[in-house]
């Protein structure tokens, strides 16, 4: 690991790494049937410098923003390094959002440049992009047949030499949107200091050898993959493996072929992998099954204090071979991790490092150090981070507040939101938790009006309300996380509920419910409302006519129980 304390910015750290590890393989790109790219750090640096020069040719200056809109691939990381060396701020955007959602975020951050993959660009350019008049667009892998009006090919040779510009620790390195595709955009401004501090801590806790290989599956715009699948492996001279498709049948062969040692997953994927292994075990003849069960017990005992990959991969070779045989760690986060799958993987000798974090605080605030493994907590605060439980109840459960070198500078152009979120340097997470006697944090629910899906998507009710504007036969409506109205000591099975108010003295009509159902069905499945309640009183509102959500939810909780929720047929 490079010594990051003396470095000022991500660009400097990446440059040092690419020079230090110049002959190591940095990036491998596996497509379905062939390897489409394999680059050393020296080659990555040359390509990234080309992008630096190209961006500078198109007027990207220090402090400007450069958005990236691509699926996981080597060009993502090359573009990011190239942009950072111009002194620009990166804006990693989610390629899975719809084109109008992507446009809304770009209208908010007004990037000077957008680096975009061709199929995503094809959809985006169908929209009115007049609000992005100042944005230069670089498109990757566009076919020769497309003349690309109003855009430039990413592959173009620049007409000038690059000039590397370093930022300062306190400068904003990235703007990462934690929400706001429908409501107020929340662009978390994360500084070079935030990233360098986090990379240093995680690199010490989970060091990667130069021979290690990280399989990048989570979208790279996601905080976990950006850290674990870009910064940490690069700063340690390891390699990152990309694969354009994440269809299950292509994952195993790639892990084996490229000897993947590290990967990060969201809880939903972890669960899927667990059930696949369990199914395979269930199909074994009983004698063979008994042998495997015994070996799992032996491994469990042998690794009760800390993981031992060399031993586990020998004892349980057939199971490890399903993941290529070299998988040492799975990082899991982005949403609440059920202890069941995590404990299952630990028992078969593949430790799952469970962490807890928010986009507003880099990657993780707490993480399990695996000494010993604990599947029932999200671990201890990482070095340099303080966690306090504010306003605890009699059981010690209160809101989790965090302070430390990874907490963001604030939301882009949203001072009010920032002041609500960060108080005297402490970030209010909106999550409820408590510490156990050994200093591990346990999450116990949410104090904020949002849900997190098992796929790691944060859904803010305000963001989806626009989909229900003008709901037939409804005077007022609002969307809530059910757990916000009726606090529950759980982080799973969260649901969104619609509060519907018909005209005074009238009942809710079937027309209204049909309209709700139809509009709901048009939303992405993870954004859908699954229940509703009917409320007869006028909604309390602020002077600017915004719904006072906290007051309304309190009134509802006082008048109704959770049993009043009516299921909304999908």
């Amino acid at each position, binding site marked *: 690991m490079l010594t990051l304390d003396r470095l000022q910015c991500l660009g400097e750290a990446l440059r040092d790494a690419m020079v230090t590890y110049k002959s190591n393989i940095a990036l491998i790109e596996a497509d*379905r049937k062939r390897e489409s790219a394999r680059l050393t750090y020296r080659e990555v640096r040359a390509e990234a410098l080309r992008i630096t020069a190209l961006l500078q040719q198109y007027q990207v200056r220090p402090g400007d923003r450069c958005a990236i809109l691509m*699926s996981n691939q080597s060009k993502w990381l090359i573009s990011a390094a190239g942009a950072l060396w111009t002194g620009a701020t990166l804006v990693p955007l989610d*390629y899975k959002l719809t084109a109008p959602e992507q446009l809304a975020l770009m209208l908010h951050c007004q990037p000077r440049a957008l680096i975009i993959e061709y199929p995503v660009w094809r959809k985006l350019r169908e929209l009115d992009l007049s609000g992005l008049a100042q944005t230069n667009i670089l498109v990757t892998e566009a076919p020769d047949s497309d003349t690309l009006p109003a855009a430039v090919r990413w592959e173009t040779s620049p007409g000038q030499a690059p000039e590397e510009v370093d930022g300062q620790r306190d400068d904003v390195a990235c703007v990462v949107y934690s929400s706001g595709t429908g409501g107020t955009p929340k662009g978390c401004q994360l500084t070079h200091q935030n990233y360098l501090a986090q990379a240093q801590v995680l690199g010490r806790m989970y060091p990667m050898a130069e021979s290690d290989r990280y399989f990048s599956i989570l979208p790279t715009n996601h905080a976990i993959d950006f850290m674990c699948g870009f910064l940490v492996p690069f700063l340690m001279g390891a390699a990152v493996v990309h694969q354009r498709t*994440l*269809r*299950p049948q292509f994952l195993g062969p790639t892990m084996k072929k490229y000897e993947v040692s590290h990967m990060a997953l969201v809880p939903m994927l972890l669960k899927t992998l667990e059930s696949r292994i369990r199914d395979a075990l269930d199909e074994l003849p009983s004698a063979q099954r008994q042998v495997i069960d015994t070996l799992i017990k032996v491994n469990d005992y042998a690794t009760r204090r800390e993981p031992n990959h060399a031993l586990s991969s020998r004892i349980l070779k057939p199971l490890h071979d399903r993941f290529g045989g070299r998988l040492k760690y799975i990082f899991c986060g982005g949403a609440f991790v059920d202890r069941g799958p995590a404990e299952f993987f630990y028992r078969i000798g593949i430790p799952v490092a469970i962490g807890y974090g928010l986009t507003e605080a880099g990657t993780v605030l707490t993480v399990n150090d695996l000494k010993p493994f604990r599947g029932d907590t999200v671990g201890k605060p990482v070095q340099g981070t303080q966690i306090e439980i504010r306003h605890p109840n009699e059981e010690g459960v209160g809101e989790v507040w965090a302070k430390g070198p990874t907490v963001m500078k604030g939301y882009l152009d949203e001072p009010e939101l920032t002041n609500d979120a960060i108080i005297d340097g402490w970030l209010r997470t909106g999550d409820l938790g408590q510490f156990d006697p050994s200093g591990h944090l346990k999450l116990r629910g949410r104090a904020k009006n949002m849900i997190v899906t098992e796929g790691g998507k944060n859904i803010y009710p305000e963001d989806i309300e626009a989909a229900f504007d003008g709901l037939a036969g409804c005077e007022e409506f609002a969307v809530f996380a059910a757990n916000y109205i009726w606090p529950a000591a759980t982080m799973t099975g969260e649901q969104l509920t619609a509060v519907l108010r018909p005209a005074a003295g009238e009942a809710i009509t079937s027309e209204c419910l049909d309209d709700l159902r139809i509009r709901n069905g048009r939303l992405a499945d993870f954004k859908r409302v699954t229940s509703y309640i009917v409320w007869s009183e006028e909604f309390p509102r602020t002077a600017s006519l915004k719904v006072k959500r906290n007051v309304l939810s309190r009134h509802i909780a006082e008048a109704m129980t959770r049993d009043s929720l009516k299921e909304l047929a999908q």
Partner: protein
Amino acid sequence: MTATEKRLIELAAERFSADANLLTPGQDFFEALGIKSIQALDLLTDLEDEFDIEIPDYEMQGVNTFAALAALIDKRA
């Protein structure tokens, strides 16, 4: 029906044991074949093999008719 639509329907019918004669380009293939999104990705893999192309997984978002899927293939071919 275009040549791509015809071949696509034949492949889909073969993989999911459906009657190709009952399938039309405008149909929702999830409904017509009784499949889920993960199976649709299996179909996509067959199509990539057949047409010797590669289509990013996310391109399937919002695509639910045979005609739309055929258009996706034609753009890549």
